[in-house]
């Protein structure tokens, strides 16, 4: 259980830190322009051409992946805390809650770069090739570890509650032999 919790903390660090170095740099975006013209891939030979194509209000804005990276910090911090508490906690109920919380945060970590905010659409962009898969893998691992911790927690509860037979067998069982019916003298 402790090993799992440490692994969750390590994954939380990955979720929080890695995206900060794997999102795309701030790029130019177009405002106004044709309706339904979603991108202008290749319209410019040089960055300066952007302003020639865009309306006068074109400004440099962070990309979606930048906001995803920032959002992941908000997931990573509580996840790291949950992992740390899971390592330290001795109460079964507390561990159960922390494992559920961790699993939920793992799911959120996966949803941020895919559904909730997203990343750049370009197939070769670093946020798509590196940041998003890394977050999906880390989030998936967090969910798997938290589910395993939950199962382990419940199994240990079952063992502690039912295993009275083991240690008591030595005491509880009557010694056979003379007392058994029909036993030889």
């Amino acid at each position: 259980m402790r090993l799992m919790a440490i692994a969750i903390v390590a994954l939380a660090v990955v979720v929080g830190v890695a995206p900060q170095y794997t999102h795309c740099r701030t790029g130019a975006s177009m405002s106004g322009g044709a309706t339904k013209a979603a991108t202008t891939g290749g319209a410019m030979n040089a960055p300066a051409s952007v302003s020639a194509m865009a309306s006068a209000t074109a400004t440099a804005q962070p990309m979606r992946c930048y906001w995803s990276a920032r959002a992941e910090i908000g997931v990573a911090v509580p996840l790291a805390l949950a992992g740390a508490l899971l390592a330290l906690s001795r109460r079964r109920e507390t561990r159960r809650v922390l494992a559920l919380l961790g699993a939920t945060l793992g799911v959120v970590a996966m949803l941020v770069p895919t559904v909730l905010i997203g990343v750049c659409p370009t197939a070769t962009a670093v946020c798509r090739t590196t940041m998003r898969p890394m977050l999906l893998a880390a989030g998936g691992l967090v969910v798997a570890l938290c589910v395993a911790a939950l199962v382990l927690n419940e199994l240990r509860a079952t063992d502690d509650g039912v295993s009275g037979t083991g240690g008591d067998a030595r005491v509880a069982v009557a010694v056979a032999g003379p007392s058994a019916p029909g036993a030889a003298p």
Partner: protein
Amino acid sequence: MRLGRLTVLALRTAAGDPVRSWLIAVCAFAIAAFAVSTAILVRGGQESLHLAAARLGADVVVVPRGAATEVDGALLMGTVSRRWMPAADVARVAAVRGVAVASPQIYLESLSHASCCAVSDMFVVAFDPRTDFTVEPWLRRQLGGTLGVQQAVGGSQVTTPVNYNIMLYGYTMWLRGKLEPTGTNLDRSLFITLPTAYAMARASRTTAVKPLVIPKDRVSSVMVKVTPGADPARVAGAISRAVPGVSAVVRPQMFAVERTQIAGLLHVMLVVLAMLLALALVVLVLLLSMAAHERRRELGVLRALGASRGVVVVALLAEALVVACAGGLAGAAVAAFGVSLFHTLIATRLGIPFVYPGGGALTAEIVAGLGLSFLAVGVAAAVPALRVSGEEPALAMRE
């Protein structure tokens, strides 16, 4: 002994020594993961080349002499190609015996170092709608007709949604559809007709910062379909002799550099896999020999209770393979998911085209990887199992 009881015994024995079981599982994990990754990457690369060649649809590709590698690079990896051949060569090629259709193509580039949220380095393929057999069949199938002027079709990774406008050199076109993925630069390409290309070049003189210049009476390549029954290699040879200044490349030799790269990658990965297997085998034989030795007395008791040699061997193998199953499955899953998540990054770093294998091929690769890990663990377990089972039970119980 019934399979169910044997499996239960194997599982319980494996659980009784978690450290050893983990080590065995890790070895099986490593073998399966590496084998499956290798298979997926190599198959993905080969499949990508196959799809790209099929996308072009040509039996022979005619390019300016010495430009074959450059053209391959442009089509597959998006590297710039600025080699041209005279447009008159198209007619000369078409006149060669065995040529059914000769269709010219012009390759254009949009820009380099584009910003993140545009399609960077968009590659444009301009084709002759009267003779084309690359895109036209798909257009007839999917759209019921050919492309008009100011219309385009994109590769699967063009970010503009279908039926939206896309602008190049200040020239707006209607994106009518997207082709199936090939794992190559063709997925990030735009396909337009030659009239559209020339119209765009004319318009760019006033609408783009830097105009698009298409050399007059020049083409980048000629795609050739041979007549039924003709040998593409012979036709290619005839074209090379009949038309000076060109190279004719048959389909199996297309993308030669990339094929060599993939073959090289396979070679390297197989060498690493062999080394990994050897190391894992040594570790496994040691671990399983230790396990069998420690259980000699227990196995002697089993023999005393009526287990034959065969049962003892199967019991030891079962214990090892149960653990190998868990490790191997985990390794195969990690490899399959890992490559799936990171395939673009991996392919870019390795410099190969890549398309993720489909269900059947993927299943076969996973089964092969699992099989290899089972074989390794099975062989490593068989060695001590045969030795221990052959020992006299009375001697084994003497420990």
